[in-house]
């Protein structure tokens, strides 16, 4: 099977600080990839490179077998939820979704129908015509998720998709992810909530020191130690020990 996403020797640095030092990854249709790593490990950077938001990288990224530098058409098959939810927030939810749908090339009637129904399903119906600036954090996140789905894309890049969402909405989103993957769509998402990543992903990719430190289904990552949680694996692979000591020092600092 042909990979839908392929990264070869992906390298990127901000000034003198190298963030990605050669990421190699092949992703196949129908996979749900949980992309994890410590704060500042370069998860969002990877996603931004694939989306074309960052252009000063080294290496090669191909989507559906074509180099992403070859043209922007591939973006029409991608849905993206960014990490920071910046939107033109003087617009109403309806206006934003219609704008995005128009640019994805979806027929106006289809955009209108999908946007209205999706907002309704995610409980945004009352705010559909209100300024986005009046939305809560969770509502914004829902809007961004809807905007990433409106053109029925084949690949989803979701950067922290469930941050700010309530428990019920998280259940819906998880169910949607599973359902879409079942249809053969590829989902590439990042999260800091290890329990969610553990349960949801077919495959977990851990980024550390600018390279992929671990890659595989959770069972494989556990290896021999079956009882180990993803938390433990994360701590071990990122070389972090002594959370207890740090916590103790924080507490003792407050008392003195």
């Amino acid at each position, binding site marked *: 099977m042909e990979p839908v996403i392929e990264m070869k020797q992906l390298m990127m640095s901000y000034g003198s600080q190298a963030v990605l030092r050669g990421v190699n990854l092949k992703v196949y249709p129908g996979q749900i990839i949980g992309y994890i790593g410590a704060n500042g490990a370069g998860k969002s950077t990877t996603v931004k490179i694939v*989306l074309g938001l960052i252009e000063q990288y080294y290496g090669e990224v191909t989507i559906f077998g074509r180099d992403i530098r070859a043209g*922007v058409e591939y*973006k029409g098959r*991608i849905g993206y939820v960014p990490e920071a939810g910046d939107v*033109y927030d003087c617009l109403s939810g309806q206006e934003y979704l219609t704008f995005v749908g*128009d640019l994805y*090339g979806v027929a106006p009637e289809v955009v209108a129908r999908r946007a209205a129904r999706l907002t309704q399903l995610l409980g945004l119906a009352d705010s559909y015509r*209100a300024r986005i600036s*009046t939305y809560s954090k969770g509502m914004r996140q829902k809007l961004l998720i809807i905007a990433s789905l409106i053109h029925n894309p084949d690949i989803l890049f979701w950067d922290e998709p469930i941050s700010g969402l309530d428990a019920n909405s998280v259940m819906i989103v998880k169910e949607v992810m599973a359902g879409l993957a079942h249809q053969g769509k590829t989902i590439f998402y990042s999260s800091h909530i290890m329990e969610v990543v553990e349960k949801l992903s077919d495959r977990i990719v851990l980024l550390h020191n600018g390279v992929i430190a671990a890659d595989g289904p959770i069972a494989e990552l556990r290896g021999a130690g079956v009882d180990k949680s993803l938390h433990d694996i994360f701590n071990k692979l990122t070389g972090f020990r002594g959370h207890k000591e740090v916590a103790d020092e924080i507490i003792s600092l407050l008392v003195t």
Partner: protein
Amino acid sequence: MSEYTSLKMLDFFAAIFTRLGVNYKVMRRIVQVKLALDGRNVNVLTGGAPPPEGQEHSSFVKSMWIYAFVGLAPALAMLSQGSLFAVMTLYFGIVLFILLTSLVSNFSGLLLEVRDRTILSTKPVTSRTISAAKLAHIAIHLTILCTALAGPGLALGAYRFGFAFFGVMVVSLVLLCMLAVCVTSLLYIAVLRYFDGEKLKDIIIMFQIFLMITMNLGFQLFNRTIGLRGLAIYLEPAWWQIFVPPAYFAGLISFVVGASRSRPYILLSLLGFAVPVLAMWLHISVVSPHIEKYLAKLESSGSTARYRETTLTLLIQRVTRLIAPERIEGAFIRFAHAMLTKERALKLQLYPQFAFGVALPFIAGLLPTLGNEMSWGALSDALRGGVNVLFIYAFLVAPVSMVRFIDYSESYRASWVYKALPLKNPGRAMRGAMQGYLLSYLALPVLVLIVVTLALLGVESGKHLVIILTSSLLVMLLGACLGKKRMPFSAALGQVVGGDMVESLARVIFLGVLAFIHWRLFSSNIFLLGYFVVLMLAVVIVWRTAFNFTWEALREAESPPTEAPLVSR
């Protein structure tokens, strides 16, 4: 954080605050932080970016110079020959007007501060201390503003009427400020009572736009006000003046300084004390207890804040769906229209400059030529014939040079979305956004311009009008593609870069050159026709070819600061 002089002044009242049950030390600290924040905020009047550290006070001080200058105009009325009562009513009227508008616009942030609720109210600070800090903060600002605004009046008045005047005037100003604060907060509460926070924000923006237009025009009318010196104005006390607060204080001043001791003056003077005190009492006992409840409404504007699309918006949506040659372009027309008519910060910059730019030619050019005859016929006769029609170029300078505003937005960080979308030709996006600007800002004024011109100057002016409008369009198009290439709404509002000024100037000069050519060809119909054909061809060619470029071309033109938000992790 610096030690502000105003804080040291505040220390004089420390004992009073403590007596009232306020924790003065905490209050002082809160006020200090608020003052520091003010210094870093963008001032509405002077605009521009937040000042760099170290010169934080500069923008505030700068705006105070503006207020002082504005205050000079009504102060000159004091030198006029009219009755003291009339002059002072006029004076206080103007001062109250400026005070009220600036309270609603610039001070709304202070009065309606809700952010500090989450910060301050969660700490062990009594609400009494918090409200005292808020009050002190407003009082400091109001004192500075009033000093600047009334300074010229105080000086000139003291010079002409003596020292007693100075004393009564200071008392009057304090009372006037009290009244203004109460009226403003009553207005806010009334709006919040019946509408939600979003509506209030819209109303505040309207006031801000209104204030800036009046202030700007105030400068221009300055010369004319000086004319008042020769003019004597007279006003006698009358019953209706009990509804005109400026008359109270004028009455008070006449009573003390002008020795007008008759009953109407006494009544007005008493009202001058009673009304502000009553308003303050009303404010403290009736409004204040509910203020928190209404302010909470500001934070959660809730789901009721819906938009009803205006007929114009719907029309634009229909028309663009029908005629826009490309989907992308149509989408950007609608998008730009929505942004330009809804983003408050953008409107706050656009509207006043636009109005000012269109009004200036009137004041500077047309009014002086009119003389005293203000009838339509006289106007038409005076302007008809000759090259007067070329004056229309002056009206188009502002709209043409202001196209650049479509590059800016408060939420410029949201421009990541362009890159995440399959957008092949960014040029189409720009062309679309520019049409959005034309539709939402120029369509109506140009229509009015056409009708008025044809009515005033006759149908034969039509041919010139066509050339003028075509030239303006050409300048706009050329400016967009020769100038700095930027995606619409992708640069931070408020930091208009120096390069943009040069560009705007280049546009104005280019428009001037076209106007010059037009003038040289003015009387020959054949040459005019030829010129029009050339202009039209240029427009079509630029329209077709100039808005085709790749992301690479855009990236080369992009400056690092605008790119930064996209790269940040």
